[in-house]
């Protein structure tokens, strides 16, 4: 009796969603376009409107963030109710006259893209809500740039066409540089320049790899579905995979190409850090999962030994670097670099468990890192500094802030009950079944390292005697709402992981042909090109 009712209830929702998905396929496909177009339209509206009253600016900004977020959740619900067998749902195909180059506007979502898409929607909502209340100077320009970023993010993960996939990424990236340069903390100009050079460099290598992939695969169209049909010959695979690994790797802060990340995130204004660290950075690993690994299994096998060492560098070396940090935001930036090591190890294991778990891990990490940057910003505003030496005892003055921050930190260090745990667990499980089970032993040291720096940060900011000035009281409602949004998402996936695991699993199982997952050719030498 007690178990039947919720099932009937859920079944009812499922039926409704199924019928909604079937009844209006066109509408749902258009929603994918709207999710990109609405933030951009709002950005344009704010740009051309001239001076507007403050509430109007805020309303436009909010609409540009909330609507794509709601669309992403709606589409995820429709997707979950249907049966897709690895095919792209909600497809939009428009000929743009570039057919001879194999390029079309082609949007859609598959099981791999969906978690990232929803992540972009949810983090976008939180970042938008946090941005409109932040009280920065030149709010209009601030929101314009963030809206452009959001439009780009919604586009990156719903692009099937590879050129658009790349293009939307650039689209979201450029506002990041400007946001750092204009609203950053001290040293923003130098950091903005460094990040711009670094990431542009990474993006260019990626582009070279993507074009090479297109040329050598002999595919008819430059899109993800078409490329899968093509086949790249083994010797070339290694070269192309190398380009993609390095290019995407720079964008995801793979060791030793990581140094831009902590500096950028600690300097950037909080909403930009949330969107970049939370979502945009995932572009690199998303690209590897969606393109490089399924299309270039031989290349992946060639590069696996090197990737393993680099990923362990992320985990262990950057783990230690994180421990040595005294500035809360720099520490969080390093921690996010460290966690990318887990995701790379999930790819390294090269199994449905490992890659599915990497997707789960990236989803969870995006939510938790955005939440931590938001809360660290609140801490900095209250304490007047982000230096943990000068902070202390905030827990007595701001118990709610402490509760949220502690929960976010525990989520990010993989406490069960929050989404991050499942991804990490799946990656650990997959590692033992790889060719090098010993990697599991090393990788698991990460859970101790992250507990050390995470709890140290909580203890030094919130526990003990009150230190320094404290201004502004506990966390305000306007700051709490976006934080709770992210925390609830972490919690929901934490107790019901199938919401992310099912589409990810379906996507991975269909994207990776069965035989590629059994290709395990660990070359003993570290091949750079082959």
């Amino acid at each position, binding site marked *: 009796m007690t178990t039947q009712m919720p099932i009937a209830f859920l079944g009812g929702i499922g039926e409704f969603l199924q019928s909604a998905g079937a009844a209006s396929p066109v509408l749902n496909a258009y929603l994918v376009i709207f999710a990109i177009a609405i933030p951009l339209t709002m950005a344009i509206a704010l740009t051309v409107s001239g001076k507007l009253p403050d509430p109007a600016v805020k309303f436009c900004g909010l609409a540009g963030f909330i609507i794509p977020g709601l669309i992403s959740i709606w589409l995820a619900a429709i997707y979950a109710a249907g049966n897709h067998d690895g095919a792209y749902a909600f497809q939009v195909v428009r000929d743009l006259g570039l057919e001879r180059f194999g390029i079309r506007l082609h949007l859609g979502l598959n099981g791999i893209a969906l978690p990232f898409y929803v992540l972009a929607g949810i983090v976008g909502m939180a970042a938008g809500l946090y941005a409109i209340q932040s009280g920065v100077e030149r709010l209009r320009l601030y929101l314009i740039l963030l809206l452009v970023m959001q439009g780009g993010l919604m586009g990156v993960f719903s692009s099937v066409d590879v050129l658009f996939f790349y293009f939307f990424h650039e689209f979201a990236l450029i506002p990041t540089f400007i946001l750092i340069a204009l609203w950053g903390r001290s040293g923003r100009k130098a950091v903005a320049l460094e990040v711009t050079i670094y990431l542009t460099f990474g993006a260019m290598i990626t582009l070279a790899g993507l074009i090479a992939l297109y040329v050598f695969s002999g595919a008819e169209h430059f899109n993800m579905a078409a490329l899968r049909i093509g086949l790249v010959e083994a010797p070339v695979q290694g070269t192309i995979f190398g380009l993609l690994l390095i290019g995407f790797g720079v964008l995801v802060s793979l060791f030793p190409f990581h140094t831009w990340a902590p500096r950028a995130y600690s300097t950037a204004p909080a909403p930009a850090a949330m969107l970049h660290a939370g979502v945009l950075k995932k572009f690199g690993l998303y690209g590897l999962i969606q393109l490089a690994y399924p299309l270039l299994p031989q290349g992946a096998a060639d590069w696996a030994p090197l990737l393993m060492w680099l990923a362990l560098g992320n985990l262990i070396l950057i783990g230690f670097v994180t421990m040595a940090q005294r500035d809360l935001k720099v520490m969080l930036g390093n921690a996010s670099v460290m966690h990318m090591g887990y995701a790379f190890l999930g790819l390294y294991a090269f199994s449905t468990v490992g890659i599915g778990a990497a997707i789960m891990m990236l989803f969870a990490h995006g939510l938790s890192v955005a939440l931590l940057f938001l809360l660290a910003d609140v801490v900095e505003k209250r304490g007047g500094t982000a230096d943990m030496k000068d902070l202390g005892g905030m827990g007595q003055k701001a118990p709610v802030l402490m509760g949220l921050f502690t929960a976010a930190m525990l989520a990010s260090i993989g*406490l069960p009950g929050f989404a991050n745990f499942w991804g990490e667990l799946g990656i650990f499980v997959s590692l033992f079944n790889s060719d090098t089970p010993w990697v599991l032993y090393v990788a698991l040291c990460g859970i101790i390292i992250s507990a050390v720096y995470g709890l140290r940060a909580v203890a030094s900011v919130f526990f*003990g005697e009150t230190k320094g000035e404290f201004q502004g009281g506990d966390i305000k409602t306007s700051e709490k709402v976006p934080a709770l949004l992210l925390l609830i998402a972490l919690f929901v996936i934490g107790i019901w992981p199938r919401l992310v695991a099912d589409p990810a699993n379906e996507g991975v199982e269909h994207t990776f042909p069965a035989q590629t997952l059994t290709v395990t050719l660990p070359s003993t030498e570290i091949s750079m090109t082959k």
Partner: protein
Amino acid sequence: MELGTVLSIILLAPLVSAGLIWMFARQRAALAMTLSLGAAGVILLCSGWLFFGLWDGASYEVSTEWLTLGSFKLSVGFLLNDLSALMLFIVAFVGFWIHLFSVGYMNDDGARGRFFGGLSIFMFSMLGIVLADNLFMMFIFWELVGFSSYMLIGHYLHTDEAAQAAKKAFIVNRVGDFGFLIGIIITYWTFGTVSLTELEQAAGIRPEAVTTLMGLLLFCGVLGKSAQMPLHVWLPDAMAGPTPISALIHAATMVAAGVYFLGRSFFLFTEEALHIVAWVGVVTAVSAALWAFAQRDIKKILAYSTLSQLGYMVAGFGLGTLYGLHHAGDAQTALYYGIGASMFHLTTHAFFKALLFLGSGSVIHACHHEQDIFKMGGLYKTMPLTTLTFAAGVIAIAGVPFIAAGFFSKDAILYVAKSTSAPAFYLLTGTALLTALYMGRLFFIAFLGKPKSKAAEKAHESPWTIVLPLAVLAVFSIGGGYLILYPPSLQVLIHDWVPHPHGADHQLMIIISAVASIVGLVLARVIYGAGAKTDKLETTLPPVYAISKSRFYFDEIYLLYIRKVQDRLADIIGFLDTLVISGVLVRGTAGAAGLLGIVARRLHTGSVSTYVWWFFVGLVLFGAYAGGFLEGILK
């Protein structure tokens, strides 16, 4: 109602309570208390219903799939059998009385919402461990009890001690979980399942697949959670938390989870692994008993005694299972001797250690947070009920024959030790004597003689919410060795699985227990005297006292490692990261790019608004391009 539904109610009631407290009762202490106590009451009633009717004693399992990633499937479910039923009884019963105690004890605390919310989260996590039907689910709740322990140790936010202790507890447990998780993953890939029932069958069919490494890695989790050497360092520090927490989490239930886990997965341990398990237990039992002599803080003495008793349980599991393996009698029951010996002691220990901690809480409450036993004294006059119940606890832990629950359970462990390993037997017997001695020291100094401080003089008996739990637990501490106090469905484990000495062994055990307990208590009275002001051991035998006080330098060595190795290493790697990777490689590249930039700058104005405008020109072009207008224009 179905059994599964009742078990779900038991598991979810505290979670619902915690959620409600978090949402509505953070600032409303009375509501938070009611919710938390109500959840504990629901757990107690539902488990009572299970034991007195609903459950027939047969093993019951139900599970549902929770997560699928490729070939990896993770399920959640319940496994109710003799072992988990006994643990459920302990958690529900002791948990309820400690909840009631907390209502009285925490009456002047400013953050009761957080406290009772945490208590409910703990009950949820602990029950999850108890009912879990597979290793991954157990690991999940294993981590969650670690979290609730972290949260509750750190309850007194403003003290640095609590902050450090909470952090230490979590990190040390993570070190243990490191091995635990590897062990679980190895088990998973070896047998293709983590379900406890399926594993038991698989291990029976393929005993050669069970390796010593697997068992020892799983045992790492026990080292952390049950605070066995060398991961015991967090437990004494954890006394920085409120006293009811020390009683519930750090004495009666959570720290015993390790021992419970051993019983739950006994089929995954080879003989070599069991030897190591047993010796870790023996060494912990002896060492912790020695360290108790240099402690002045009433809670710290009890904490070391908990370590020592946990050592007994772990040793009892290892020795008992070894004894069972080589035992000639009924093979099926003999396999469970390790579980019987350790779980029986776990049960009685839960009663008397919870009693002792709550008794110390009553004293601390009455003496305005004075915890030094040398500043107490003469409490028997002002706090007669507390003194009486505390005395019952001392008798129980010392193991006075026939009138102490600890006598029966310790007996079983000493008996399997005698039959398995002579050195272990001598060490454990010596520890029994030491136990009586240090508990006597605590009792005679703190409760007898004359008051030695204003606080002790003005002490008064505690309210009924505090005294009633003491009385109930005292009854079980004294009578817990007799079957009559247990629900019928739990008697199989406590009677049949516990190895009983026969004939000459039986008499020998009684004599040993009688001598160890009575001589220990009498010696304590003679050496320390009633209400002593100074520590006799410190004044007469300073070297011995120093050894005891050193606690074999575990904390110092770990601190040295953290300061000189871990933090140093972190600083060095951090420095290299900045200097080499960031400084030379990246800045070098950036320098080259900067040269290019000088050229490029001539093409740009450097003004941000120009960039923004260029950006939007691109944007408009894109819009035209995407909409197909561009194509039309070009044509």
